[in-house]
């Protein structure tokens, strides 16, 4: 048993650290504020910088602009960026969609999209949820009707993360069947968001940030060659991508939390509190110790799943374990951070005495979303019970 990274992997880690020092995250404009999911903020410029280094696509094959590297390198990159609070939220779906195109795309789709995705020249989002189809994707109502060489798409998506900042969407739509039929066919489409008939309306979230959107589709023409995978067989692509996304979406939750914990500990040691330093208060110590243990638990579980993935094990429920624990950790962290930091932590970015750009307040405000976004905790637990433990279905 060996938890160590190889020499080459450690060298790469140093390279990423050097890159972050040379490109300090604070110096770059941000289109998307960090709401505490672990992937930090989002910055188009920074994403392109990472793309120029070849790092976004480094796990892809060379013929599509990649370097054929093991996914451990992707993890190390993300871990270092997270710890140093560099923005990496915007290109998350690029890597996810890129993965699906690699697995299911036509040669032309691979040639067209992968190099641009990898360089960060285009930004992709994923459009799954609808007003009446949240956790239940079988209830998707958006339709795609074939007409010659095109599909005509009509319908509405909602909670589409970063659609307003994206150029393209990977979108799920109904391709055959009656609305009452269980045999409803669902397909995946690569949709240019500048197509006529598309309206994108950001929905400010509880932290007043524009993270997710409504997407209206009215007679949108999509070339048939933009169908990803087989017609009527879109859902397996979604489920396959989801289980991996669940891992990658929370893979650096622990690394980001580690940095936050260090900052809270420093604050507690520098702040006078009831006749002594805050760091000497028993309840504060207790809360921080519990948090540290949760971070470590999340960290080692992440390593376990990373190792499975690097051995090309097809995940069934392992990522759901990581996601559930990571989201609990995120909510716990946001709450403990504010308990320790107190009033100053609750000030908005720009306020005279705010700390770290209002980071903890924004996290706390957004934290109810952690256990909902990307698959609710209930869906994760069902996945664990049914696919991991093979408990019976009703």
């Amino acid at each position: 048993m060996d938890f160590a990274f190889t020499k080459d992997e450690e060298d790469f880690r140093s390279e990423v650290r050097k890159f972050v020092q040379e490109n300090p995250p604070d110096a770059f404009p941000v289109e998307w504020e960090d709401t505490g999911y672990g992937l930090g903020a989002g910055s188009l410029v920074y994403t392109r910088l990472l793309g120029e280094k070849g790092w976004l696509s480094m796990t892809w094959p060379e013929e599509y602009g990649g370097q054929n590297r093991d996914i451990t390198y992707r993890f190390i990159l993300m871990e270092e960026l997270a710890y140093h609070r560099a923005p990496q939220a915007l290109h998350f779906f690029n890597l996810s969609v890129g993965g699906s195109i690699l697995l299911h795309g036509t040669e032309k789709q691979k040639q067209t999209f992968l190099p641009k995705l990898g360089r960060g020249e285009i930004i992709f989002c994923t459009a799954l949820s609808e007003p009446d189809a949240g956790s239940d994707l079988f209830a998707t109502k958006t339709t795609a009707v074939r007409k010659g060489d095109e599909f005509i798409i009509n319908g509405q998506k909602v909670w589409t993360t970063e659609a307003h900042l994206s150029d393209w969407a990977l979108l799920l739509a109904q391709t055959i069947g009656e609305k009452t039929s269980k045999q409803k066919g669902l397909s995946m489409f690569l949709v240019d968001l500048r197509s006529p008939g598309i309206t994108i309306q950001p929905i400010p979230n509880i932290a007043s940030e524009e993270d997710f959107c409504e997407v209206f589709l009215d007679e949108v023409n999509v070339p048939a060659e933009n169908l990803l995978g087989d017609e009527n067989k879109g859902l397996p692509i979604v489920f396959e991508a989801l289980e991996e996304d669940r891992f990658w979406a929370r893979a650096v939750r622990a690394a980001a939390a580690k940095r936050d914990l260090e900052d809270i500990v420093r604050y507690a040691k520098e702040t006078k509190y009831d006749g002594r330093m805050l760091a000497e208060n028993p309840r504060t110590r207790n809360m921080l110790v519990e948090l540290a243990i949760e971070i470590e638990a999340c960290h080692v579980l992440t390593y376990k799943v990373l190792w499975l993935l690097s051995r090309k094990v097809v995940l069934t429920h392992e990522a759901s374990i990581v996601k559930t624990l990571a989201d609990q950790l995120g909510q716990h962290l946001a709450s403990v951070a504010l308990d320790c930091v107190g009033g100053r932590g609750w000030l908005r970015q720009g306020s005279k005495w705010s700390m770290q750009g209002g980071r903890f307040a924004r996290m706390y405000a957004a934290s109810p979303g952690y256990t909902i976004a990307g698959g609710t905790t209930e869906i994760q637990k069902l996945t664990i019970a049914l696919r991991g433990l093979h408990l019976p279905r009703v």
Partner: protein
Amino acid sequence: MDLSLTEEQKIIKKETRRVLSKECSKDIVRNLQKTREGYSIELWKIMASLGWPGLIIPEEYGGSGANFLDQLVLLEEMGRVCLPGPYFSNLVGTLALLEAANEKQREKLLPQIASGKLLLTLALDEPGVRHDLNFIESQARSTDDGYIVNGTKLFVENAHISDLIIAAVKVDGSRTKDESLSLLAIETKNPNITITLIDSFGAEKQCEVSFSELKCPTVNLLGEPHLGVSYLRQLLPKVALAKAAEMLGGAERAFELTCEYAKQRVQFGSPIGAYQIIQFYCADMLISLEAMRNLVYHAGWKLSNNFPFAKEAAMAKIWADEAYKQITTLSFQIHGAIGFTEDYELSSHWLRNKPEQFVHGNSEYLSDLVAREIGL
């Protein structure tokens, strides 16, 4: 990164499971718990013949020279069956010797331990003193040829069947905190020792040990005088990690039993495992269990590779304390009444997980260690 078990570890796991499933059934466990000795000499002999007491003892002293991870694999299997008897307390004593003993003491004692012929245990706590290295009251007075020892130790596990007790004592009154303790290896056949079983609710055999003007020769001072605190600071995180591995095995077994039961037990026309609340309980158990496993093995890997490990070991034990309890609690809830009959296997896990939390450092004690390690 390679998180699989080594070939040797796989063999240890397989062999241990095979032997214990045959020799240590739940009925045997329950019967042994009710005896005064609390263990079977026949089973101990089998374990000794398989090299278990000496697994971690270096080869030059008659052991197998295995690393700590190998030891954790073995303990995990023992935890699955709630192995009764002195294996764990003996291991704690062995680890104390490996930490503190000088060459002569190693040569004399370790081969006997490896062959299973000598049993030892560690005596730390006292009435009024729990998990404390600074306020221990047992005293040793220096004389020309050794020490005169007085004092009372509590929760000395398996002292009644041990040959040797490693006792933390103050030598010649107080010194600075860090130099306050020394470790003495005291033979239980000494007439000035009184060992009394203190009947606990669980299966483990706890003892009160009193020393009254007991003579202990100088050669039985382990390592250097006054270094007891530093030896114990090294030792206790290892003990915590070893215990966490045992608890991991127990939690894993309780979890497996429960998932099986949930698939078979039918109520309202369906297996109860088809109901979401039961599914969620099971998912919660698996999450805790998987975290527990990886915390234990990660800390074990650090220790086996000579990295600093105390923080990780303490975290693993704190997690295990809570997780084993949570998992057995949910196991009962899913089993219903059948679970808390004396006859059912779960009862052993339940009555075991609480005292396992206390052993040589509970969560509260270890939290202080973690607090220091994270910079508080």
